[in-house]
């Protein structure tokens, strides 16, 4: 292929020019009306928390999110008892690190500047699938002591409590990520996955109820419910 072949030939070029000439640019009246509507929308947005957060620079938005996440993590870490020493295995640590890394990636995706080409959809879908997969895999990694008590009847009962707590913990994460999102495609689903990860992180760090079934029902389900629930909302409630 030569460089010259990248340009249309004379015949095609002429047609393209004709098409371009046919497109009438906006007249003054139209431009005035469009500007007035757009400016009113900007002004309304500037007076909302959402508009305020979205108009911060990308660095500032990321620092805000990181700051809030760190604050919640530190307060939670010290305010509530962690799982006992026996349960703090390599798998436990690996699960927490994985959740944190995925949460960080989700945050970077959601706060991506809009003047950069949009990320391909498969990347967002991939992150969501990995987040769900990690939540499920982490449920199959309970500690040795926990495995011994897998059949404990309290596990299933407590699953509802953990699920509720996880969902409640995930809501502020989802809300924050939606507030700083300037309109990335699939940002809602990525934020939902992040909320699920945050819920799983806290439950993994603090929940001492043993058993795979408990973790599947009470922990992994948080991520699944966030993604499926908000995915359905996203699918059937058309965005503006």
């Amino acid at each position: 292929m030569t460089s010259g072949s990248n340009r249309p030939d004379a015949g095609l070029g002429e047609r393209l020019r004709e098409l371009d000439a046919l497109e009438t640019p906006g007249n003054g009246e139209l431009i005035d009306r469009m500007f007035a509507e757009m400016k009113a929308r900007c002004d309304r947005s500037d007076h909302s928390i959402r508009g305020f957060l979205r108009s911060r620079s990308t660095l500032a938005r990321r620092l805000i999110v990181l700051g809030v996440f760190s604050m919640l993590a530190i307060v939670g870490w010290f305010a509530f008892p962690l799982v006992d020493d026996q349960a703090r295995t390599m798998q436990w640590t690996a699960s927490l690190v994985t959740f944190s890394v995925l949460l960080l990636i989700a945050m970077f995706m959601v706060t991506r500047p809009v003047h950069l080409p949009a990320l391909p959809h498969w990347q967002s879908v991939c992150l969501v699938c990995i987040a769900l997969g990690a939540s499920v895999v982490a449920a199959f990694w309970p500690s040795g002591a926990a495995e011994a008590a897998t059949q404990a009847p309290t596990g299933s009962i407590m699953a509802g409590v953990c699920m509720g707590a996880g969902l409640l913990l995930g809501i502020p994460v989802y809300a924050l990520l939606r507030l700083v999102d300037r309109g990335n495609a699939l940002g809602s689903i990525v934020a939902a996955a992040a909320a699920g990860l945050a819920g799983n992180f806290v439950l993994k760090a603090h929940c001492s109820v043993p058993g795979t079934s408990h973790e599947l029902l009470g922990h992994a389900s948080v991520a699944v419910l966030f993604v499926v629930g908000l995915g359905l909302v996203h699918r059937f409630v058309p965005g503006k």
Partner: protein
Amino acid sequence: MVNSSPQSKPTDEELMDAYVDGDEAAFRLLFERYAPILLRLTRRHLRDEELAEEIVQQTFFRLHGARNDFQRGSKLRPWIMTIAMNLVREHWRRSKRRKMTSLETETQAAQEADFMPLELRQRSELLHVALEKLPTSQREVVELHWFQERPYAEVAEIVGTSEGAVRVRAHRAYATLKQLLVLEIRGDE
């Protein structure tokens, strides 16, 4: 074709800098400069007047939101074009209307072009249909490279790929367009 502006006119970047510093009039001037360009772009892609206007407004709304990311010394045009192209692409993904040729929008487009000779309108219609048959990735390149007259490097920056890939897309797009229009072009000769 590169537009040469009189020296007295502030550049896009100067206007954007002024806007970031709080000069509302600069935003208005930027809108006046870019809205007609973007309207042409979106009308060509969407063939829906209302939607085209909405996307142009949304582009500036997003520019307004992202203004604090604008760094002095960087070029504004690729920013605006990228935001607009992202929105158009997202629209296609959402509505999946790519292959749908709505009678309503065709009528709308035809109404706008009523003042044009019938033959020209027919040719334009042919070209519109041919453009719609191109994959989105190729159409974007034709739009930016031919209609917006942006160099390949800038097109690559806007669509988020390498310059080589953009050249390949352009080559394929022009070859396909030529193939689609060959009968019409021959007939004209």
